């Protein structure tokens, strides 16, 4: 049976400094420090990455060496269980691990809110009207890309070769509803004006089918094998091929459909007849075709449109759900994924303008086309690229996405709560709650452990190798009985897991 699809999103944001003498790294650090200035949490990220199998089951307390804490770049853990840090000259925020797709949407929006608060606070620290502005996009239009990665818990027992070949058709074609849209083209050798508008921010940057790279020669399926949990049981599929979405429903669909497809692969019901002949050229063909009519070559020799492939995946997902149930993605969210999936494919097929309420590339294209028509602009006019960039501007006063009538899934109150509080149904609950309660006794934390300094040598590392332990339900009594970190450590010493 497919295992629970614990998942999350890590987003590198574009950054612009105005009227201040800061480079992108310093500006990113300032954003994070400005945000932290408002909270109690200052725990560093712990880069200790040794995961011996004998530490891999539940909680084992032991004496350890001092953690390797990186001091060069700002890197921290928040009380909502997220990681907020500087990566490759960009501010990056990783959501906490989530058990449901709805939670991923909520914590992705919380990450945006964290960015917004960081910008406001940083502006108040800069002099003479200086400002740092954050963009939730994936390219600068000049050949430089930065990622929005998804992560999914996958059963280690699934052969990686089958996983790769069977998930690739989804990664190549899901951009019909998950693409964030882009004015222009950045493929090597592209001539300005050749591609006026395309579905995806990222498709231009993929050059391999499978590989380990993430910053050059990017592969459609990334093979980074760093599970951040029990490596004998799990894989963390690190998906680098997606766009950062402004539309909440698009994020829900991107993550939800992928979690369903991965579940089908685990249950070995997907088959090989949707395998593509040339995935790298196909991902660009699909992206470069807003008409959605182009066909791509299948390994079988047939040709199919991206929408036809998506209808096939949806049909198989329905049969899979009937036979195996939706527990891997949770029943309520699973049903909603199937409904939204059908609705968006129908809308795209009919050319229904209401998909602009859901699909970022359609919403952005309507703005670009409408503006170009009104002012009789050439496709290469800078004002159209400006609309592209400002669609993802996270400032309320400048954001175009927030003015497009995109349908929402979460309320602002829930987003504000999620900025401070972790999801309750994964180990992120234990991480976030420890940081909220015992911040002064925590030296460092990462995805799979927390290091405490409770005043007695040595430091104590609490491993969290199971993503679905450390939940609110499992830790209620523990937290109720431990007012201090010392009591928590003593109490954990007597039991086996948090």
């Amino acid at each position, binding site marked *: 049976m497919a295992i629970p699809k614990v998942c999350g999103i890590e987003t590198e944001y574009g950054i612009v400094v105005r009227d201040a003498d800061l480079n992108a790294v310093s500006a990113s650090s300032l954003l994070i420090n400005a945000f932290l200035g408002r909270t109690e949490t200052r725990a560093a990220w712990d880069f200790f990455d040794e995961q011996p199998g004998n530490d891999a089951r539940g909680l084992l307390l032991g004496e350890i060496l001092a953690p390797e804490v990186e001091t060069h770049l700002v890197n921290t853990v928040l009380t909502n269980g997220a990681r907020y840090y500087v990566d490759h000259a960009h501010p990056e925020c990783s959501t906490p691990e989530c058990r449901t797709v709805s939670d991923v949407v909520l914590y992705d929006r919380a990450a945006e809110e964290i960015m917004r608060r960081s910008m406001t606070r940083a502006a108040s620290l800069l002099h003479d009207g200086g400002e740092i502005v954050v963009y939730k996009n994936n390219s600068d239009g000049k050949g430089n890309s*930065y990622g929005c990665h998804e992560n999914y818990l996958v059963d280690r027992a699934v052969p990686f070769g089958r996983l790769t070949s069977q998930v690739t058709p989804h990664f190549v074609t899901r951009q019909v509803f998950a693409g964030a849209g882009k004015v222009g083209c950045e493929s090597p050798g592209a001539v300005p004006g050749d591609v006026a508008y395309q579905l995806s921010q990222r498709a231009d940057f993929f050059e391999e089918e499978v590989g380990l790279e993430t910053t050059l020669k990017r592969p459609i399926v990334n093979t980074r094998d760093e599970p951040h949990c029990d490596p004998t049981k799990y894989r963390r599929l690190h998906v680098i091929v997606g766009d950062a979405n402004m539309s909440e429903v698009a994020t829900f669909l991107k993550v939800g459909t992928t979690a369903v497809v991965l579940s089908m692969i685990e249950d070995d019901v997907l088959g090989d007849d949707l395998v593509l002949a040339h995935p790298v050229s196909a991902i660009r063909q699909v992206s470069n075709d807003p008409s959605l009519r182009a066909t791509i070559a299948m390994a079988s020799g047939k040709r199919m449109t991206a929408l036809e492939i998506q209808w096939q995946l949806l049909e198989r997902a329905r049969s899979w759900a009937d036979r195996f149930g939706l527990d891997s993605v949770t029943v309520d969210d699973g049903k909603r994924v199937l409904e939204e999936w059908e*609705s968006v494919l129908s809308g795209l097929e009919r050319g229904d*303008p*209401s998909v602009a309420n859901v699909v970022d590339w359609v919403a952005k294209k309507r703005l670009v086309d409408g503006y170009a028509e009104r002012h009789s602009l050439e496709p290469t006019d800078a004002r159209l690229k400006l*609309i592209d960039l400002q669609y993802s501007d996270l400032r309320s006063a400048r954001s175009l996405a927030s003015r497009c009538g995109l349908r929402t899934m979460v309320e602002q109150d829930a987003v504000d709560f999620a900025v401070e509080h972790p999801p309750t149904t994964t180990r992120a609950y234990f991480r976030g709650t420890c940081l909220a309660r015992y911040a002064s006794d925590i030296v460092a934390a990462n995805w799979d452990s927390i290091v405490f300094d409770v005043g007695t040598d040595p430091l104590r590392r609490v491993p969290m190798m199971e993503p679905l332990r450390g939940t609110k339900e499992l830790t209620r009594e523990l937290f109720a009985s431990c007012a201090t970190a010392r009591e928590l450590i003593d109490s954990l010493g007597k039991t086996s897991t948090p």
Partner: protein
Amino acid sequence: MVLLMAERTKKQRSVPQRESGTPNETDSGKKSDSTDRLKAELDDLLDDIDEVLETNAEDFVKSYVQKGGQ
């Protein structure tokens, strides 16, 4: 900052708000209404968009350069 807030308040009144959770209409009359409404909202947004856009598009687009990331 005060000016910015004032501008934001004004903008939020004059542009369509995000709508919450309405499922796709299936009735054709409703669909036509919905299409007209979407077109009207787009026109309203295009009427006001220059107030939201950065003032010098050419310079801004040229200066938007990022370091490559992952």
